[in-house]
């Protein structure tokens, strides 16, 4: 048997369905790979060996009974530690939830189980999904399999690194400002942020509720589409979930894989050109634009005049929502409690608990949000940011009257060295320059590998209208058919 960890999810599911290999064998191969390399990568915060093997045995038993198997049955998946998993530790990369074992599964995890996928464990992330490098995890940074002295992106660096290190063929992320797409770009993997409301937030530990979107990560566009299909769709437990059919992303990925983009109009955002992407990133992007043209796409330039205000608007809206959401971490119902010596008041215990439990980036964002929502500042900061959000949405709406999708580099720079941007928090925020507009608008976006710069992966982002997730999969799959997947050096 060839190395099972190098196969795509589609290939693994095929081998399990035909009986050429078993789900247990596939799972064990990935657990062995994790044991061999994760000491150097630190993609996983928790490996659920017993749970994974039990789930794999169930798939093998179903097959033995002749029960029908879903398209991802027996395929291992790594889950970002932002999603609750019943009885399995869920920390959100924070000390404040260290040791917490949730009493329920998130909807995404329920659907992964129902699809017959095998959850290997929980992946590392920036604390509460706030960051672009996974360096803000309370449990140490994840390292990029392309160069272990560099960041794997964030906040979902663990999920992306697990894919690039062949520890898992599929992973789940969550994207509030780019936390699926930017890690995908810098690890040479595929990451898709579905339309907001297209995937359920039930059981997703909240950071910024009007932006948080769980989504698929994979090494190929088709694998990402299959995972998207498995987890997406209306959930009555999430009141912002969209009650409409899931766009046929799998068919779109298969159509795109034919390499024909005739009749597809793609827009390049004029305002992004002057935004200081590294020359190597721009060179790889421009080459990908030529490739898309050769595949039949028509490329036009589109002005989105308010995109340059997306980053400041985001860093008011997201911290504001975070300051409210994270009030629930008060040392009462779950997680850490510090200083309860019988003499201190509830308020003192809360303040000591939050001081000890939260890391510096989370504290910064809680305080920024508290400031932006204060009376006297509300109109100038949070209120104004919400108006800018309207104008950004109008830019997107106008653009999609002229083109089917927008394209850009996913992130302005390739994976940077660990520690390069932690001293100046605002420098870290710039990693999300190109991904944030989509979150404010609520539409879908995908990052697909488009080449290398200085030996490190570069991602191309495709942004589509809300509930037209299929369009981005078609374009991404077409580019992938021409560029191919990227293979990191051996660890």
């Amino acid at each position, binding site marked *: 048997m060839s190395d099972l960890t190098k196969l795509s999810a589609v290939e693994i599911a095929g081998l399990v369905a035909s009986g050429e290999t078993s789900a247990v064998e596939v799972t064990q191969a990935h657990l062995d790979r994790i044991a061999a390399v994760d000491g150097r990568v630190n993609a996983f915060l928790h490996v659920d060996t017993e749970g994974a093997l039990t789930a794999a045995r169930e798939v093998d038993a179903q097959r033995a009974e002749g029960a029908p198997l879903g398209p991802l049955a027996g395929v291992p998946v790594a889950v970002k530690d932002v999603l609750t998993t019943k009885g399995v530790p869920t920390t959100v990369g924070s000390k404040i939830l260290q040791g917490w074992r949730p009493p329920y599964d998130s909807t995404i995890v329920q659907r992964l189980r129902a699809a017959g996928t095998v959850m290997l464990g929980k992946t590392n992330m920036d604390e509460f999904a706030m960051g672009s490098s996974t360096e803000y995890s309370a449990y140490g940074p994840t390292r990029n399999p392309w160069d272990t002295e560099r960041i794997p992106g964030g906040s979902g660096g663990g999920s992306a690194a697990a894919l690039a290190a062949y520890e898992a063929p599929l992973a789940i992320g969550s994207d509030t400002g780019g936390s699926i797409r930017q890690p995908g770009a810098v690890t040479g993997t595929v990451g898709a942020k579905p339309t907001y409301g297209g995937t359920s937030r039930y059981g997703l530990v909240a950071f910024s509720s009007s932006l948080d979107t769980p989504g698929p990560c994979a090494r190929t566009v088709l694998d990402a589409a299959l995972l998207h299909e498995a987890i997406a769709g209306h959930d009555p437990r999430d009141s*912002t979930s969209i009650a409409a059919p899931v766009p046929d992303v799998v068919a779109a990925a298969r159509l795109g894989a034919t390499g024909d983009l005739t009749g597809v109009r793609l827009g390049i955002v004029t305002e992004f050109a002057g935004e200081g992407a590294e020359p190597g990133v721009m060179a790889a992007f421009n080459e990908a634009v030529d490739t898309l043209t050769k595949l039949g796409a028509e490329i036009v330039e589109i002005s989105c005049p308010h995109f340059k205000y997306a980053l400041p608007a985001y*860093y008011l809206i997201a911290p504001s929502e975070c300051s409210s959401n994270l009030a629930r971490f008060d040392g009462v119902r779950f997680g850490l409690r510090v200083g309860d010596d019988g003499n201190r008041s509830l308020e003192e215990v809360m*303040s000591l608990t939050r001081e000890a439990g939260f890391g510096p980036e989370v504290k910064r964002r809680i*305080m920024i949000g508290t400031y932006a929502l204060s009376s006297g500042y509300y109109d100038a900061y949070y209120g104004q940011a919400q108006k800018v959000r309207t104008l950004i949405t109008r830019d997107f709406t106008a653009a999609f009257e002229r083109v089917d999708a927008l394209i850009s580099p996913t992130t302005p720079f390739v994976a940077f060295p660990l520690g390069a941007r932690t001293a100046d928090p605002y420098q870290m925020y710039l990693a999300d320059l190109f991904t944030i507009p989509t979150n404010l608008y609520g539409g879908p976006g995908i990052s697909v590998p488009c080449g290398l710069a200085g030996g490190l992966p570069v991602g191309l982002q495709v942004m589509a209208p809300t509930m037209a997730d299929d369009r981005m999969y078609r374009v991404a799959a077409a580019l992938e058919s021409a560029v191919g997947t990227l293979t990191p050096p051996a660890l």
Partner: protein
Amino acid sequence: MAAISREEVAHLARLSRLAVTEEELDTFAGQLDVILQAVAQVGEVAAADIPPTSHSVPLTNVFRDDVVTPCLTPQEALSGAPDAEEQRFRVPRILDEDVAS
């Protein structure tokens, strides 16, 4: 000019229930100042007559049928609590003793 003073950061920390150290106050004051000066750019946009967007999905009043479904047992709901007593979350005292007595 600084957008935010050390004293204002100390006030924000109190509002945020964060018992920050003196050293942290020094660090955060500088960092929050850089961030707030940068995000203040939103003020450049002429948007007086623009309605705000709080949410990208235009939904209001999402209803579901009132159907009884299984939920967590008290034991499950309390399973992660730092302290519990008689099926309740136990918290440090809220009232001063002379008030409570």
